[in-house]
């Protein structure tokens, strides 16, 4: 059997990155949430925040462990599977990754030790400091990764010498044009993702009538944050989209399945099956003028289409088109959720509306799905280039036989399958046990504690230990 190393390496990278991105997105938000709780504990001396901080630290530990091990894999894959990429753009991209290691990885990995094991070893203020530094480290890690990735989307501040990219201006490279909006979009996405998990966990406890005080805090803090961040994220997403339209018109054309650049006005394609053979959309449902409005901000504006570039320079249209629609669709669902939540809260009916809390208790994966969809949009949208206009993905691969890549891909699938299924199972189990100390008795007693608010949902909701 003949194995294509380029295709297999792409699958391997996509597979490992998809698993990896889930955990940092979660832990960036979780670290900030734990640091906030600890800060509130120090300030208010309310034990509730302390217990919540310790509870979420356990979940953080399991998620962070998985983020670390899958991240080490990625840091080496640039060399093992994409050695030509490493060689051609190493002078520019590697220092950004180097700064990530120096300013972010060491900070988070080292202070994690104090965060997890230091509760009885250091005073509370120092523990709080360690948690803040871990949160800072995770956010700085995102800064450098997005910086490197944004440069690959639209490379600036370099020149080509003897076939390799050589840096000319570091500030231009780090803050390439698409970087600020993409970084804001990604960081906000991480906070939103975590907030939805916290909200869902809180809603679940509330419905079960367990850990009522903690549940109330979780729901209010998470929903409060989401009410601010989700609309803000719409704005960041829009800004980011405008930057992409300016610097990567082909990607936007693929996101919109927009073939003909002379078309004016451009309708918004609500649903379609992009057909690369006929260079048009099958069974398209469209809304006139809307894409013109979205991309050019004018009623009849036109923007470049896929046919404006040769077929070999176009990304695969369907995956970009659909993943973009999934991301935006999930964003709209989030927006609707926070608007309803805000109204209920305003009317003091948030905790008496069982249906709302029941709905959000199932919404914990929504941020993860949106992030993966968004990541596919941006990464597949850059194809066939790994570094736009500089290096094609097909030319970036290592001189490693397809058989080796196929074998290691199979190993990754098996190992990740085992490790991550167990990890998600354990996280779920920790969440089911809830924020009390691990002893079974204590969590029972909290469940039986008299509840000041009367609500019926507790009885028919999900049972503990299910």
């Amino acid at each position, binding site marked *: 059997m003949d194995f294509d190393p380029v295709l297999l390496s792409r699958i391997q990278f996509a597979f490992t990155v998809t698993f990896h991105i889930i955990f940092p997105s979660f832990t960036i938000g979780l670290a900030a949430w734990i640091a906030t709780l600890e800060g509130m504990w120090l300030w208010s001396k309310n034990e509730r925040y302390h217990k919540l901080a*310790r509870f979420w630290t*356990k979940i953080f*530990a*399991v998620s962070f*462990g998985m983020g*670390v*091990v*899958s991240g*080490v*894999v990625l*840091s*080496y894959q*640039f*060399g*093992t599977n994409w*050695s030509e990429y*490493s*060689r051609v753009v*190493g*002078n*520019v991209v*590697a*220092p950004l*990754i*180097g*700064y990530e*290691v*120096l*300013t972010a*990885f*060491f900070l988070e*990995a*080292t*202070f*994690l*030790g104090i965060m*997890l*094991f*230091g509760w009885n*070893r*250091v005073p509370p203020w120092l523990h709080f400091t360690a948690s803040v530094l871990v949160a800072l480290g995770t956010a700085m890690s995102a800064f450098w990764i997005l910086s490197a990735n944004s440069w690959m989307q639209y490379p600036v501040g370099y020149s080509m010498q003897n076939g*390799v990219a*050589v*840096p*000319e201006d*570091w500030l231009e490279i780090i803050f390439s044009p698409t970087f600020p909006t993409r970084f804001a979009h990604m960081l906000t996405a991480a906070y939103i993702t975590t907030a939805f998990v916290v909200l869902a966990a809180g809603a679940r406890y509330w419905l079960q009538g367990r850990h009522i005080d903690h549940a109330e805090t979780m729901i209010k803090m998470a929903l409060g944050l989401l009410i601010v961040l989700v609309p803000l994220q719409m704005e960041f997403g829009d800004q980011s989209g405008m930057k992409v339209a300016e610097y990567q018109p082909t990607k936007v054309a693929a996101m919109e399945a927009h073939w003909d650049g002379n078309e004016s006005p451009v309708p918004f394609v609500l649903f379609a099956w992009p057909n690369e053979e006929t260079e048009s959309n099958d069974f398209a449902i469209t809304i006139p003028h809307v894409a013109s409005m979205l991309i050019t901000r004018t009623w009849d504006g036109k923007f470049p289409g896929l046919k404006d570039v040769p077929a070999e320079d176009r990304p695969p249209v369907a995956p970009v088109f659909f993943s973009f629609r999934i991301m935006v669709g999930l964003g709209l669902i989030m927006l609707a959720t926070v608007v309803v939540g805000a109204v209920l809260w305003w009317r003091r009916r948030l905790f008496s509306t069982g249906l709302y809390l029941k709905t959000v208790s199932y919404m914990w994966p929504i941020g993860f799905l949106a992030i993966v969809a968004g990541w596919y949009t941006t990464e597949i949208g850059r194809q066939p280039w790994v570094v736009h206009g500089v290096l094609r993905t097909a030319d970036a691969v*290592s*001189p*490693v*036989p397809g*058989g*080796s890549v196929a074998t*290691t891909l199979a*190993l990754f699938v098996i*190992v990740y399958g085992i*490790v991550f299924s*167990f*990890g998600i199972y*354990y996280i779920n189990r*920790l969440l089911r046990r809830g924020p009390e100390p691990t002893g079974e008795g204590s969590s029972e007693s909290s469940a039986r504690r008299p509840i000041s608010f009367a609500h019926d949902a507790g009885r028919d909701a999900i049972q503990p230990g299910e």
Partner: protein
Amino acid sequence: MEHYLPVIWGGLIGTAITLYVLLDGFDLGVGILFPFGKSEAERDHMMNSVAPFWDGNETWLILGGGGLWVAFPSAYAIIMPAMYIPVILMLLGLIFRGVAFEFRFVSKPHHRLWDFAFAAGSIVAAFCQGLVLGGVLSGIDVVDGKFAGGPFDFLSPFGIMCGFGMIVGYALLGSTWLMVRIEGGVADRARKWAFPALVLLLAFIVAVSIWTPLIHPHIADRWFSAPNIYVLWLVPVVTALVALFAMRKIDGHHPLSAFAASVALFLLCFLGLGISTFPYMVPPTLTVWDTAAVPASQLFTLFGVLVMLPIILLYTAFVYWTFRGKLQPGEGYH
């Protein structure tokens, strides 16, 4: 200045890799010794002695690999594909043992799988690191600045021997670490594990010292020609003295000196490797200068290293200091 930049970077990467081997070495070593733990409580104790540190320790591996890419992109682009299989197996081993730290405690009482994952992952990672070391020392096939060999070029009797050398070396670091960190039963047994590990490591050091000059004339030349030999004869003599010292300290219940002596043995091995290979980045063809990044890239990151490395070392020391002293039973998992 520009001439020395690649040398400075070579030294920095050597330092990062050395720190990695010493730091992750003892926690990998604890993983390697894990199956010898007698009881559940003993294994808990062993794992807890390294749990707060392993993640920070492993970051040095990323700095070593990342630093290689930063400063010597074309060496990185040759070594990684050449070592494709052992590098990826090492990563898979590190995955298993890394998640085992949390999974093992969370999954109790059904944690057998993670006991196994911790030990097997540590052994596989150590063995593969030895394979990479052996593979790079044996030389890499390069044509036009790119790796031109086959997927199994790394595999040789010499490489396999380096793999076993790595396992026993880490076991020595791990056992002397346990002597330092733990009191009572585990510490007594760790002392018994340290002895054979030390003897095997010495056998390995002797074998490499004979083997490499025999198959690589330029290494023989480096060591045994005048005027080098007038100074270099000190290296094996000091190594022998340190080994003797280590043996006495292990035997005489002096944990801290035993651990320090094990570290010194590793440092001497690195010195030996450095003498044998400098200035080659990709033996036997490409030097640090051939594979260096452009000065602009090396300088830009060097600035970051000079600012950040002291800070990193400071807070790393602070965390080690926070968790100083003998580990109490039951202390550890949060």
